[in-house]
């Protein structure tokens, strides 16, 4: 009787001790399958992300080319036509008038050179970010300061990540260029503050100006589409966001948050 009791007890205990590892092995199998699915999903997401980045870069490039085309046609083309016309209309007999026209032609040529430099800067973006986002920002600021119209203060946190992400750098840099172009064209600002900092895996670029500001709600669809929507769209593609604070007469503050690197 005692033997039977012990046998039953041992058989049950052994069965339990066999079922436990069986469940463990089963659990590992299920977990492993989930791990596989997760890896596949991650790879798919990475592919989608890379495709989006490539698409955005293409769009940015396309936009840059459009700007260059329009500038060449509307601005530099006009200036050069005007220069040609001015030079053609010079009457060598009338030295005083000829002098005036040559001066006008020189002025037009200088303006053309300025416009050409502006276009060159636009094309340079890709090469600038190779040496890092901060360096590219510094280069952009140097260029703007040379005009003498703006006082720019640039602060950069010391703890920026050592590893770069060139894809994200280029997009952030293009957003910054867009913002600075808007300041040049519309803000009538004299002071610009640019701050680049890094906190817990997020890169924050903040651009503040003392310009005329605007009311975001009152912007037309076209105005929004060209600038702000583009900025937002580009930031979203690299997993970031853009926050805009502005009021008429109070300047504008634009903050870009990007997960980095």
């Amino acid at each position, binding site marked *: 009787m005692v*033997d039977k009791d*012990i046998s039953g007890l*041992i*058989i049950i205990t052994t069965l339990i001790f*066999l079922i436990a*590892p*069986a469940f463990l092995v089963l659990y*590992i199998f299920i977990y492993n399958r989930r791990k*596989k699915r997760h890896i596949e999903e991650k790879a798919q997401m990475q592919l989608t992300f890379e495709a989006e980045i490539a698409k955005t870069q293409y769009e940015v490039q396309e936009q840059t080319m459009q700007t260059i085309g329009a500038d060449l046609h509307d601005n530099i083309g006009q200036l050069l036509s005007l220069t040609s016309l001015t030079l053609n209309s010079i009457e060598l007999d009338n030295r005083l008038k000829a002098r005036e026209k040559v001066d006008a032609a020189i002025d037009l040529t200088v303006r053309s050179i300025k416009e050409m430099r502006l276009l060159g800067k636009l094309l340079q973006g890709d090469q600038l970010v190779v040496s890092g986002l901060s360096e590219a920002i510094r280069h952009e600021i140097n260029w703007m300061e040379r005009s003498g119209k703006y006082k720019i203060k640039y602060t950069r946190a010391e703890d920026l990540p050592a590893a770069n992400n060139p894809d994200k750098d280029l997009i952030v840099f293009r957003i910054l260029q867009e913002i600075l172009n808007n300041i040049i064209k519309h803000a009538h600002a004299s002071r610009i503050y640019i701050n680049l900092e890094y906190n817990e895996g997020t890169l924050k670029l903040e651009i503040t100006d003392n310009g005329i500001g605007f009311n975001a709600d009152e912007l037309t669809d076209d105005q929004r589409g060209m600038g702000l929507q583009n900025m937002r769209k580009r930031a979203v593609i690299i997993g970031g966001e853009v926050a805009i604070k502005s009021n008429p007469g109070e300047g504008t503050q634009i903050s870009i948050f990007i997960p980095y690197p």
Partner: protein
Amino acid sequence: MSRYFTFNTIVELTCLLVASICLTKDSNRAWRGMFWFLLITCVTEMTGIYVKGLYLADRAHVRPNSWVYNIFIIFEICFPSLMFIKILTKYANSKPTILCGLAIMYLVYVYEVITDGIFKKHNLTITLMAVLFVLYSLYYFYCLLKDESYINLKYSPAFWWVSGILFYYFGGTACNIFYNKLSTVIVTPKHYLTYYIYNALNLILYSCWSYSFICRKWLTKTSAA
């Protein structure tokens, strides 16, 4: 002659045969060592049956075959420990810990030889060995779960080898703990209860191991191709 071919020995010989086909040319020493370990296992099993025959014929002058299995413990401690070092190297530096465990097991073994002699089953060493091997197996599974990379477990030799160990030593815990009581429990006129339990555990262990050796062979072939 037929008495040498029991359920246990057939399972072990089959596993040895699989090991001889799959592992003798393996590039890794630990995996190649498994063939020698299985050979020692089969020799021990045959010797055990032979000594048991002598004991049943002359109980007055011949001792039971426990001493054969006690000698086998020396190899049983060593070979799987080396395999665990090999398997766990991928995830962590487990060598010092496993070598430490190996030293402790041998110390307990020597202690049992001194206190109980060679003819009494070294149950303490076996229990300690089972506990350590179960811990190593669980640690391997933990590393497997923690690892971010995906391994196809269906064809993972290490996974099946460790699973066999876990089933055998964890499943045998109840038998080890109650060994003294169990050795008196007879199920059929011919065999003790432990005989059936160990048969089942051996079947699981050697099935897992055989499959792991086949996977190992596949893996070597695939990576060579």
